[in-house]
């Protein structure tokens, strides 16, 4: 054991930073290799069969595809450190600029949906756990798990379509698509948040049920505290760890889920641009976008681990 307190945080920081670096390297390398893994000639595919041979060659030279692989890799890394992501094949605009323009819209959507799903899921999960613990409230449990399974099975883009139909086409309450006022956020955020909220509330309930059987909850009851205090002060913090772990996964999958929802709502974010650039075979833009998504997911995962370590000091000591 030695000095668990003194050596805990530096070691945790070192280990976590190491993992982040390795993962970052994987993302960077994967996005570099992506263009080389495409079967056939990627530039020819991008420009179409009718493009003149010298134009294809010029593009290849510009993308550095004629150099040896290691040289291309070194150049790619060098440019990356300067924040340089190359230029789009189709629009000729710098990729970095396009991403910078579109990233905020995507991030807003993901963060808003995450906050909403947590805000909804935690109270529902805790409430259902209290109502249904130890085989009580069978009907409530059946209703909860039933709706939960169904709601969680509806993919976010389909929810989006349904919401558009109900609240935009039928009743004109909210705009159908686009990003304008605050009301234009409502439907995309709802479409993104409902599924994760269902999953998360189920996790919260299961965790709470497990925690409420723990010995220390019996200790809390032996202190004759009010049920509210036992549930919220003694049980909930112990259920948060697992909730947060899942929540972190949800947040990173929300970031990816924006791709579909953005396409339903014509949202001017990264998600709609990645799809159009994949279809158009605009590889530099795809590469940059994949890189941004990957790095975003890694940063979220790291952030979740740090928050977890602060909330539950044991997780900083244990295995990663």
């Amino acid at each position: 054991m030695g000095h668990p307190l003194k050596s805990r945080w530096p070691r945790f920081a070192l280990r976590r930073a190491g993992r982040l670096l390795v993962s970052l390297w994987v993302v960077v390398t994967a996005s570099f290799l992506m263009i080389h893994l495409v079967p056939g000639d990627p530039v020819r595919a991008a420009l179409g069969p009718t493009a003149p041979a010298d134009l294809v060659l010029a593009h290849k030279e510009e993308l550095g595809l004629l150099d040896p692989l290691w040289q291309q890799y070194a150049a790619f890394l060098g440019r990356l450190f300067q924040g340089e992501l190359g230029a789009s094949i189709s629009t000729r605009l710098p990729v970095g600029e396009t991403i910078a323009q579109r990233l905020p819209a995507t991030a807003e959507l993901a963060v808003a949906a995450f906050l909403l799903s947590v805000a909804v899921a935690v109270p529902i999960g805790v409430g259902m756990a209290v109502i249904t613990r130890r085989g009580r409230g069978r009907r409530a449990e059946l209703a909860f798990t039933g709706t939960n399974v169904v709601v969680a099975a509806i993919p976010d883009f389909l929810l989006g379509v349904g919401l558009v139909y109900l609240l935009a086409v039928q009743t004109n309450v909210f705009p159908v698509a686009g990003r304008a006022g605050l009301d234009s956020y409502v439907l995309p955020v709802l479409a993104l948040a409902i599924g994760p909220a269902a999953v998360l509330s189920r996790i919260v309930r299961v965790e709470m049920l497990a925690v409420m059987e723990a010995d220390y909850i019996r200790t809390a009851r032996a202190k004759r505290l009010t049920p509210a205090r036992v549930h919220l002060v003694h049980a909930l913090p112990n259920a948060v760890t697992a909730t947060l772990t899942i929540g972190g996964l949800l947040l990173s999958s929300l970031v990816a889920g924006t791709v579909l929802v953005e396409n339903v709502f014509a949202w001017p974010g990264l998600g709609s641009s990645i799809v159009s650039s994949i279809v158009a075979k605009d590889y530099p833009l795809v590469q940059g976008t994949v890189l941004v998504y990957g790095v975003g997911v890694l940063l979220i995962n790291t952030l979740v681990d740090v928050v977890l370590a602060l909330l539950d000091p044991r997780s900083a000591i244990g295995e990663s």
Partner: protein
Amino acid sequence: MRPVGVAGFGLLAVVVSVAAFGPVLWGDQATVVDTGNLLAGPSAEHWIGTDNLGRDLFARVLVAARLSILLALAATAISLVLGIILGAAPILVGRRLGRLITSAVNVLVAFPGLLLVLFFAVIFGVGARGAALAVGLAGAPAFARLCHTLVAAVSERDYIAAARIAGVSRLRVLRRHVLPNIAEPLIVNATMAAGGVLLTFAGLSFLGLGVQAPSYDWGKLMQDGLNGIYVHPLAALGPGIAVVLAGLAFNLTGEAFAAAPNRTFSLGGPRDPAGVTAPVPGAILSVDDLRVTIPGPAGPIHAVRGITFTVEPGEAVGVVGESGSGKSVTALAVAGLLEPPVRVEANHLVVAGEDLTAAGAHRRLGTSLAVVFQDPMTSFNPAHRVGPQLAEVSRFHQGMSRKAAFARAVDRLRAVRIGEPERRARQYPFEFSGGMRQRAMIGMGLMGNPRLIIADEPTTALDVTVQRQILELLAEVRRDTGAALLLISHDVSVVTDVCDRVLVMYAGRVVEELPAKDLRTLARHPYTRALVAAVPDLETDLDRPLAVIPGLPVDPTLSPAGCAFAPRCPLADDHCRAVAPELLAGVACHRSGS
């Protein structure tokens, strides 16, 4: 089979038959171009309308089932096979390379599936085959992780080690010994994953990255329908509903297999009519005919079958017995800590002036009753620091400020001989040793002014030297506070050392009650004598086997007619087996005289 499972299977059967026969039955209808009915809304002829060539959308949704499901299954199969290969890597390619693959999988699992799908979709290009490969590869890390966990659990087992030592090849070990043992959870997960893959595929086609015209799956139909959502929404919602139903079919079927029979049992029948008696005056704890029933799969378990006892102020009473004798349940019942569906009944159950048979919070017990639990490692809340957990009692029950309560907590930690109490109070429970936690738990009981301490096997989880210290601390606390003690233990020597009086429990009943000092010499019940004889002392002949009590404790779901100990008792006769003995003059035995 639960209703959820039945619904899942039924749905899956429908989905699979539509996929199998759909193209045969409705294939022609789905391709008939009706130029007079372009983009029509729902009608009797076209249930959910027609597309831009006037083709019937309902028929197209039914026909699309085959492609959608085949693609989902193909992608799932790719994930599963790749996942097994990657997950079994430590067996297949040796430890070092296997570890490298495992850490690579761990990095990949952190990325959301859709992101991996998009990445691979770039490489494999747009189209059904590319999308199937992309979805399949993207799903592999998750399966690899699952498979790795399962393989790791299986390969610990002896028969795997034996096969390896016998020189069985790696591939054969995997095929013959590992895979059959992890097949079930893998198949369950694959079934549920197929539901998810179906949705992902629909998403890809919806984005235009999956199935391309003129082929169509549900996602493609949705994509085509979305543009016309103003005019006729069913064109987009119809295939969407099909996707959800098919996804649910896979999910529910998988879940029906996966879900362990998670049944809770309730106690049938009405409560026994209980008489109400008055508590013994002056007693700190007075119990009359306490019965505790726990619902179980094989019928109710009668953990405590009517016990009556009192504890006088300042007195130390021990309860001994084997595991399953009901002694810990008795402790929890008199502490008022058993909750429904466990049923606690008594003619009266009065602790420190609080009637526990009456409903209510019994807040006064928060200060007048101290409870020390068996396992100090799990009895503290890991999420809070130790000091505040103690202080909570005073803040909540004695109206102290946060600061004053914390000061008292530090003082109480000092009183239970914890060194550097100021520093320790700011630590988390995991930074305490087991003995220290048990001290802190006793300290928690001392935050109020306990008149009774209920200690449920307080030293069982601790090592022998620490046990002695905790018992001494309990004795010291009793000297200082004058609190009574109810000590639950399976250890006869502990109880004889600490207690004034002993209750011996067997099968939920008190079989003998006697002064602790008489336990070794004057016990009359055969069970008590056997229990005492089973404890070795300095005079025990080490060359002979240690004494044990032959037989097993009674099945707690049964209610034997006669004496519960009769099947294991050397003295039992037919009368013993027919008539249950009452506790008379301290012993419940027909043969106590012999």
